[in-house]
């Protein structure tokens, strides 16, 4: 890492830490809860940014793992009365589900649009399934699944192994924002490892990767499972700031996450996170103003981006930055060159 990069990284970390700490002291509770929702959705977006943007797997199934994480957390927390083992179980369930689904998909050599169709179908099956759980017959232990209404009384997180101390919304913001930063750092680290390089290699040319002796199925399964675990973690946080319901599996969320990744920039990490925050803030503001349907505006934004800025916000900004700085750098290097 160059000195310049180290300085930029240090400044980013400091800015993120300052924002996380200061925010609850300067904004009202409603905004903190909203920010927590955005942070949890940003982790979901990051999972798709990894799976699709870096491994080339077009997955519509991230919301399936998101919903499973949320439901597993709510059901386990109600039954255990303590969020600590519930969180562990809620991470395990979507991870195992993603691993199993991924195994059948990748060993079945399902690729491209068919993969998208299968993951979307699985998500919609779960949506229908959880919608059909209304009534007393549908419960797991003490937790009634609640059908369309979901589980409104989703227990909030408590301090580890201390069920008496429930976290306040401000604390949950700290947890969600810190987890988002950790997830971002984790994905950055993952992409710098051999596995990360192989994910990118598969995105670029799966056939060549095979001819070099790497098994693409294993690498894609690893990426898909990691993405599933991240989406599950996002579901746990979401359950702590809203509540769990079949909406978590809905087409709306599935589409939104894809839109955020496209607008932020496929093949980037910070771009989709930025787009996730920005577009959710725009949607919330439009909802508040109540003069245009937020989803209609979101659709127009997506069309505008696809037509005018197809590579997304971050790559476009990067290109603009390069255009500005390259002539300056070139001039400097010409000046430095000794006279002939």
């Amino acid at each position, binding site marked *: 890492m160059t000195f310049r990069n180290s300085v930029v990284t240090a400044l980013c970390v400091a800015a993120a830490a300052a924002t996380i700490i200061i925010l609850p002291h300067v904004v009202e509770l409603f905004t903190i809860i909203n920010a927590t929702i955005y942070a949890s959705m940003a982790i979901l977006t990051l999972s798709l940014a990894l799976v699709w943007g870096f491994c080339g797997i077009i997955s519509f199934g991230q919301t399936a793992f998101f919903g499973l994480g949320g439901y597993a957390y709510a059901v386990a927390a109600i039954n255990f009365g303590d969020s600590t083992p519930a969180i562990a179980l809620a991470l395990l369930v979507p991870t195992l589900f993603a691993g199993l689904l991924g195994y059948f998909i990748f060993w079945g050599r399902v690729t491209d649009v068919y993969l998208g169709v299968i993951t979307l179908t699985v998500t919609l099956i779960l949506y229908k399934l959880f919608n059909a759980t209304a009534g007393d017959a549908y419960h797991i232990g003490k937790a009634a699944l609640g059908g369309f209404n979901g589980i409104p009384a989703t227990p909030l997180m408590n301090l580890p192994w201390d069920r008496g101390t429930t976290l306040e919304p401000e604390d949950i913001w700290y947890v969600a924002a810190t987890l988002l930063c950790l997830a971002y750092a984790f994905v950055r680290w993952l992409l710098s490892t051999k596995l990360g*390089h192989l994910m990118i290699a598969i995105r670029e040319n799966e056939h060549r990767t095979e001819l070099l002796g790497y098994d693409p199925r294993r690498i894609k399964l690893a990426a898909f499972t990691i993405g599933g675990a991240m989406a599950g973690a996002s579901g746990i946080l979401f359950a702590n700031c809203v509540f769990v319901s079949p909406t978590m599996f809905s087409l709306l969320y599935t589409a939104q996450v894809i839109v955020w990744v496209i607008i932020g920039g496929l093949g980037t990490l910070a771009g989709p996170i930025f787009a996730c925050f920005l577009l959710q803030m725009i949607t919330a503001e439009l909802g508040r103003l109540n003069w245009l349907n937020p989803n209609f505006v979101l659709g127009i934004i997506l069309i505008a981006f696809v037509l005018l800025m197809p590579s997304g916000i971050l790559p476009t900004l990067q290109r603009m930055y390069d255009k500005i700085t390259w002539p300056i750098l070139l001039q400097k290097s010409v000046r430095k060159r000794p006279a002939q």
Partner: protein
Amino acid sequence: MKPKAIIETQGLVMRFGGVEVLRGIDFAIEYGELRCLIGPNGAGKSTFFKCITGQLRPTAGSIKFKDEWVTAADAVSIARRGMGIKTQVPSLYDGLAVREHIRLAAGRHLMRHEVAAAVDDVLERFAIRHLATQIVGRLAHGQRQLVEIAMVTASDPDLILLDEPAAGMTHQEVERLAELIHELKGNHSLIIVEHDMQFIQMIARRVTVLHQGRILLEDDVDHVMRDEQLRDVYLGRRTHGRDVSKT
């Protein structure tokens, strides 16, 4: 004692629907040998490569690689057993840098701390150090060919298959490639598909001529060059062993 073959095919047949592209190929090369495979377009050379690398499962016949039957093996396991291929149309990672290509190939069989040195060595041997940070998608065709061969070499296979390695290269690049192939010959067995006869004379001793899915001829390069049959085949005057110009 008969020298040991690194690869051997027996009665290899590949059929696509009603079209028989390979019609019972019996082929073998020894450890450390360099063999050129020539023949007109449609002779079945690339299909033969695809069959022995596990990209296609042959309709009939068998393939033995390093004393093990690999007829039903997939491309990954054959590559892991030590076979590397440079495909006819360069198969590269267009969005990645040259160094990244070599690193991916070397990283498959080397320990983490050995990779950097191996990458530098390959970049040096192929004289592509100046391209190390270049994105492969932006390189000229000849350079892309060279990068692919370098990548295949970096994975250190026992048998290297090169499908038209000199295509699209400048005269200087072809000469450099011939030198490189001579260097590779010491440590690897090679099968090279090529159309450029001058290049073949620069690199090979033995040549196998493929025509309409069959082996037509197998001999020393000088004999093959003088052979009437080969001339007829390339001029389209011979099919199925009969002279079409007389029909």
